[in-house]
């Protein structure tokens, strides 16, 4: 089925289940349902568990458009709450992925008790309101059929459980694995990583080795035959519940507390003087107060100090940081505070998330999701320009691209004489960056916008700029 209305834009990430499709129209997020899915939706809408999950904020806000718009080719159309900024599981920290997995299992359990199930079990079923996960795939619910295991189990393993096992048991960052494979990590790959004594780690023998072995053994068997055989052998809904509970218990154990990392002590070790810091804080506060941004983006957010300042005036803030450990510490702090307006994300700004999946549009690139009214780039330029050899003009182009036309960029330039810049320059041949000068930087800023405020920090080796980016 297709959306015929010219004003409707189909969400490119929503095509796997042909029974329902998400699209955008007149600023609203809508979901079209075919006859069968509309029937499932009406049963769901009448259930108590669905209402309870909605009221608890665990599901994205959903209501049916009544009457169904006649210009749309669907049996029913739902309107969803808008998620401020869509993020992908490979941009989440370990704690975020774990909490997302726990929410998915909680929702599955509540559904099963009420006679429903979820058709799938993907990490992409979840999004965030700040540091609070939310289940968005309302089209995933359907009435449970007796004697059938959970259809989403494999997806759950590949996109949620296995990444968590990698992180918790092997100390590997899972993000590159998920970014490279839209369907997650296959059991046979996991088996190779968890050979020998590693088999003894919690959850590995069954969910990895046995799962992989049975997949290989039954690769030719049709799932409908296997479903019928399982039903005949007495598989029951209680067993699906037991699986969900067992997974929940396992995921709770996979709580890899963040250890120390290079960036985790950055605020303490980066040698900011107290006057520098307070000057910077008031600069950011004033820029945010003047801009009153709908969306603010803090690039290189570290412990989130400036993201929090921006959040005093912004409706929503995305705090991007490349070190997963630092993001995890920030996430846990925000979560424990119940913060719902600051979203922490893992991302290397020299390698931001590209478009992924089918035709590279199924998962939108970061630049297409995060364009903001206010962009903070504090103590960042030297890391990209000197540390990663990105030309200064290209660094500023990226910042400008992430800023809405007419929006504000707050950027800090660390002079070549600054101790931090000197430390980075010491690792590179002399004279490699002749253009890394304040005058050259200012000229590049002027080419992209209007400098409305400039403050030199008391240390004398760092300058802050507030720039209105040209439309």
């Amino acid at each position, binding site marked *: 089925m297709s959306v015929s209305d010219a004003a409707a834009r189909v969400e490119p990430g929503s095509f*796997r*289940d*042909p*029974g329902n499709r998400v699209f955008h129209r007149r600023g609203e997020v809508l979901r079209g349902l075919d006859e069968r899915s509309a029937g499932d939706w009406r049963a769901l809408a009448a259930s108590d568990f669905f209402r309870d999950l909605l009221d608890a904020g665990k599901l994205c806000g959903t209501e049916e458009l009544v009457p169904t718009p006649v210009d749309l080719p669907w049996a029913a159309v739902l309107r969803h709450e808008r998620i401020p900024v869509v993020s992908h599981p490979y941009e989440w920290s370990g704690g975020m992925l774990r909490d997302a997995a726990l929410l998915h299992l909680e929702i599955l359990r509540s559904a099963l008790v009420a006679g429903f199930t979820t*058709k*799938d079990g993907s990490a992409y079923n979840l999004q965030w309101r700040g540091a609070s996960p939310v289940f968005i795939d309302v089209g995933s619910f359907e009435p449970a*059929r007796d004697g059938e*295991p*959970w*259809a*989403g*189990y*494999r*997806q759950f*393993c590949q996109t949620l459980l296995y990444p968590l096992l990698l992180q918790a048991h092997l100390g590997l960052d899972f993000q590159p694995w998920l970014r490279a494979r839209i369907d997650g990590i296959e059991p046979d790959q996991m088996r190779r990583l968890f050979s020998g004594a590693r088999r003894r780690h919690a959850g590995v023998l*069954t*969910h990895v080795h*046995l*799962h*992989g*072995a*049975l*997949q*290989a*053994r*039954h*690769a030719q*068997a*049709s*799932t*409908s*035959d*296997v*479903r*019928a*055989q*399982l039903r*005949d*052998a*007495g*598989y*029951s809904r*209680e*067993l*699906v519940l*037991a*699986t969900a509970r*067992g*997974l929940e218990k396992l995921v709770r154990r996979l709580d890899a507390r963040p250890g120390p990392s290079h960036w985790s002590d950055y605020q303490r070790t980066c040698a900011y003087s107290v006057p520098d810091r307070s000057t910077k804080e008031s600069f950011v506060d004033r820029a945010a107060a003047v801009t009153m941004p709908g969306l603010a983006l803090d690039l290189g957010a570290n412990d989130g100090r400036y993201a929090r300042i921006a959040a005093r005036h912004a409706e929503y803030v995305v705090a991007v940081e490349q070190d997963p450990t630092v993001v995890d510490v920030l996430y846990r702090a925000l979560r424990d505070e119940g913060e719902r307006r600051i979203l922490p994300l893992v991302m290397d700004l020299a390698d931001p998330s590209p478009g992924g999946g089918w035709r590279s549009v199924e998962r939108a690139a970061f630049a297409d999701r995060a364009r903001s009214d206010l962009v903070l780039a504090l103590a960042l330029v030297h890391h990209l320009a000197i540390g990663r050899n990105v030309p200064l003009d290209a660094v500023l182009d990226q910042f400008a691209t992430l800023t809405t036309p007419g929006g504000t960029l707050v950027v800090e330039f660390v002079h070549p004489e600054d101790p931090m810049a000197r430390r980075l320059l010491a690792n590179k041949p002399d004279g490699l960056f002749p253009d890394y000068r304040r005058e050259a930087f200012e000229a590049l800023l002027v080419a992209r916008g209007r400098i409305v405020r400039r403050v030199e920090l008391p240390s004398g080796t760092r300058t802050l700029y507030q720039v209105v980016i040209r439309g």
Partner: protein
Amino acid sequence: MTHLAYLDAGSGSLIVQAVVGGVAGAAVAVKLYWRRLMARFRRQPTDRS
């Protein structure tokens, strides 16, 4: 009638759920394999003919 989901759940991924479902699940798995084994023996004479 068996209803198929839009997602290929994977035959092995369905069977392993019996095993991870505790004692009751393991009993289902044993029964499943016993029946498959019996079915194979029952089929054999006709296979040879």
